[in-house]
């Protein structure tokens, strides 16, 4: 079923009884050309681009729970491509361009909203670092604007500009950044893939990877063995667990990241604002709630919930930036399990096992990367060679010393 002004008007008149399920909830077949492990954003987008760009349709996405139950449905929905390093910018900018055309491509409303992402700076050194990052972006053809204090004041008069410890000096603005409705991204890609023949299999956990003579043969699942010549992992926080089924030990730790939503308010925050004197980001959802978060809790975790010291830290940062938030009531908070790579940058690569592919290490930042990562991963799986935008995102870079040290922090900041 296609969405159009006409179909929506027709359904409105018929009491919305004519809508059909958006994708097929498929039963697993005995064999596929390729299976993707993990029905999060990256797995679903990869399936979509495999089908659309490479004509590979005899494929399945195997999801242990329901699609969208992982980080793709737990993040703070911020999209941007304001990176510094040449290894990272091309992929995130490819992703940004895909976001800009995604809804037309998928015929699905993902509420892509380019409301701008503003990073605030509070010291001279930080402003210089922002100027450098903005220049790096512009050299890669990504737009960036360095704002002075007055310009930030005009945009966001409600911030605490003269905070005694963290006065606001200015900011780096990417106007094309913004937010996207996260669940709709999972549903839209699932629908697009399913329409092209991809099987989306839910409640199907991969429990083993069958390998003979260094070549992958398929996966053991809770619903039986499924043969496949190509097996592609996209399991985010569970990466170490699934990779260990193939005997791989990875430069990844799983950590919990929390997010928070306040009660609904009238329109207040124009875009996404990040506090530069800590790690804090805030935006306002279309329903009116303030959506915000901070740092990972900082210890290995698979619990999908965090501890109170981070709640306190995030609340302090909110108060340091926007004192008016002290009057707000918090509605909900939750956690998701991040695949923290040791240099803080992702991996899209082959593995030492023939036919087994790895997409992981997205840390806090993998939502924005979904379209670009899906497209690049599909390219790698179909052609056996990295996509031009993802040539630096190799698994062996930790061994060879070609780290992509964007912020000098991965799972732990002391490792590189």
């Amino acid at each position, binding site marked *: 079923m296609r969405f159009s002004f006409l179909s929506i008007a027709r359904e409105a008149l018929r009491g919305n009884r004519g809508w059909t399920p958006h994708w097929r909830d498929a039963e697993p077949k005995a064999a596929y050309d390729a299976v993707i492990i993990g029905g999060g954003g990256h797995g679903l987008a990869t399936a979509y681009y495999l089908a659309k760009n490479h004509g590979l349709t005899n494929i399945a996405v195997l999801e242990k729970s329901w699609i969208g139950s992982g980080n793709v449905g737990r993040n703070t929905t911020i999209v941007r491509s304001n990176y510094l390093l040449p290894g990272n910018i091309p992929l995130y900018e490819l992703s940004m361009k895909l976001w800009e055309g995604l809804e037309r491509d998928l015929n699905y409303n993902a509420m892509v909203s380019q409301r701008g992402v503003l990073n605030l700076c509070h010291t001279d050194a930080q402003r210089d670092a922002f100027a450098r990052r903005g220049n790096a972006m512009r050299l890669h053809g990504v737009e960036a604007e360095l704002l002075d204090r007055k310009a930030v004041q005009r945009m966001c008069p409600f911030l605490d500009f003269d905070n005694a410890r963290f006065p606001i000096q200015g900011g780096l603005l990417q106007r094309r950044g913004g937010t996207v409705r996260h669940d709709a991204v999972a549903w839209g890609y699932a629908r697009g893939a399913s329409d092209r023949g991809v099987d989306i299999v839910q409640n199907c956990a991969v429990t083993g990877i069958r390998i003979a003579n260094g070549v992958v043969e398929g996966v053991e699942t809770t619903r039986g063995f499924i043969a496949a010549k190509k097996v592609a992992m996209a399991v985010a926080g*569970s990466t*170490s*667990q699934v990779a*260990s089924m193939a005997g791989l*030990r*990875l*430069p*990844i*730790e*799983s950590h919990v990241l929390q997010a928070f939503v306040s009660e609904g308010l009238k329109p207040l925050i124009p875009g996404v604002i990040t506090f530069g004197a800590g790690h804090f980001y805030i935006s306002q959802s279309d329903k009116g709630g303030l959506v915000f978060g901070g740092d990972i809790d*900082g*210890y*290995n*975790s*698979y*619990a999908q919930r965090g*501890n*109170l*010291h981070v709640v*306190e830290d995030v609340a302090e940062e909110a108060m340091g930036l926007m004192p008016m938030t002290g009057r707000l009531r918090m509605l909900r908070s939750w956690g998701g399990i991040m695949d923290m790579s*040791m240099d803080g940058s992702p991996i899209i690569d082959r593995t030492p096992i023939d036919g087994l592919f790895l997409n992981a290490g997205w840390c806090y930042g993998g939502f924005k990367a979904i379209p670009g990562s899906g497209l690049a991963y599909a390219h790698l799986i179909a052609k056996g060679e990295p996509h031009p935008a993802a040539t630096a995102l190799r698994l062996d870079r*930790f*061994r060879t010393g070609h780290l992509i040290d964007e912020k000098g922090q991965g*799972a*732990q900041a002391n*490792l*590189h």
Partner: protein
Amino acid sequence: MRIPCPFCGPRDLSEFAYLGDAAPVRPAETSDATAVFDYVYLRANPAGPHRERWYHASGCRLWLTVTRDTRTHEVLFAEEAAP
């Protein structure tokens, strides 16, 4: 989350700093690059009991080895880290 420090008793998480998995052992100076790579970067990252290093920064200032279930955050055991 509270950590039962063997010297200070059960104390709030915010008093501690985390270093990570206690398993990796610094390779001898004569080791090759592969051993160093393994030590610095590769982790078992288990879902379940995990032996890990915590520093009681706002307490006794000693290093502890804590066994904690990463699925539930339940602390199973805490002892002084062997020097």
